[in-house]
């Protein structure tokens, strides 16, 4: 319980500041108090709308996270197994990362099937984060372990499979976890260009119709979604670390 106390205190503090700023109209009527947003969320005809949007965006974000992470881990593995390729792959990843997500989404909307756009944008948004984490994690095996494998006559592939990969799993999971919010952002931006449902269109519709509570509720739902994915991946990583120690 004491472990979660600081987290709980932080959430309570943010909620209190939000409520106060809203009630005092510090930022005008566009900043509603938290209680008004929560009232919107729990209203019967709203929560099914929000839940459907969260499920859709969440599904896209998870699919993008899985695809983007897998591709990034493959590329990182390639850069470890084929050292001459490492520089080129690193530069390629940096360039892909340099393209603004919004531009990526626009290009995807024009070039790939509409339904696939949010997933692809989410995948591209997470790939660089996971690539950097995986490249670093795959290079962390201690010198004594490398010596052992060399003495045992292990090939590059065997060392990679039996030493580098198992040792890199916690670091890679940390990378995937850090990339979870980027996956949600990628899915939402992808939806702006192509989808009719999901948190992205909900945000746009709310803005255009001055549905202030709906706008804030969708933002809150997106944040909760990011945090939920982040938390689940953290629990997975914790379980794995506990098993290997």
């Amino acid at each position, binding site marked *: 319980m004491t472990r979660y106390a600081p987290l709980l205190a932080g959430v309570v503090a943010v909620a209190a500041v939000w409520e106060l700023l809203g009630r005092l109209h510090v930022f005008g009527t566009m900043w509603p108090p938290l209680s008004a947003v929560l009232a919107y969320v729990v209203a019967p005809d709203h929560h099914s709308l929000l839940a459907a949007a969260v499920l859709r965006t969440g599904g896209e974000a998870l699919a993008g996270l899985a695809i983007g992470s897998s591709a990034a881990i493959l590329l990182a593995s390639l850069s470890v197994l084929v050292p001459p390729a490492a520089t080129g792959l690193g530069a390629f990843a940096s360039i892909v990362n340099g393209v603004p997500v919004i531009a990526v989404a626009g290009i995807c909307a024009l070039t790939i099937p509409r339904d696939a756009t949010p997933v692809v944008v989410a995948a591209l948004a997470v790939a660089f984060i996971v690539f950097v984490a995986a490249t670093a994690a795959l290079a962390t095996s201690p010198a004594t372990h490398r010596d052992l494998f060399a003495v*045992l006559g*292990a090939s590059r592939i*065997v060392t990679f499979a*039996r030493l580098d990969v*198992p*040792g890199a799993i916690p670091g890679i999971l940390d990378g995937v976890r850090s990339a979870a919010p980027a996956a949600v952002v990628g899915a939402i931006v992808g939806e702006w260009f192509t989808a009719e449902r999901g948190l992205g269109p909900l945000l746009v519709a709310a803005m255009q119709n001055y549905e202030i509570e709906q706008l804030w509720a969708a933002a809150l739902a997106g944040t909760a979604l990011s945090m939920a994915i982040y938390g689940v991946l953290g629990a997975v990583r914790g379980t794995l670390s506990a098993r*290997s120690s």
Partner: protein
Amino acid sequence: MLPWLSVRDNVALPFRVAGRPVDAVRVDELLALVGMAEFAAARPQQLSGGMRQRVAIARALVLHPRILLLDEPFGALDAVTRRQLNIELQRIWSTQRITTVLVTHSIDEAVFLGDRVVVMSPRPGRICRDAPIPLARPRGRDVLSDATFHALTDDLSRALDDVTT
């Protein structure tokens, strides 16, 4: 040792790295030999330093090597554990019969374990003494209070003083 593998899997690792089928009988036999059979399922983090060295020795022996190279294997252990492992190492040799080159900074350890003690000078590393150890085997704790043992350690200690000063 690899922290994500159990003691048994760490000992079996050389088979897997070599792409050979794991000889479970051999692994269990060596775990029993080094007194780690009870801890076969434990993870390295759960073991003491002495226990880890026992597992490392079992792992080194698993593929029937012709020679065992030990570079200060017990250097990080306390004196009591070190003495105990010295005695165990002799017991292991009595069943495995394997030529061993052991590097140590302990004169007692060198005389207690060795058939030959080679004294080397620091920078440049040159052999400056090659002393046969005529103590009978098996050697037990009583050897440590033997007059010949003390004469040999005194002699080697002087030889070491001569090269380092």
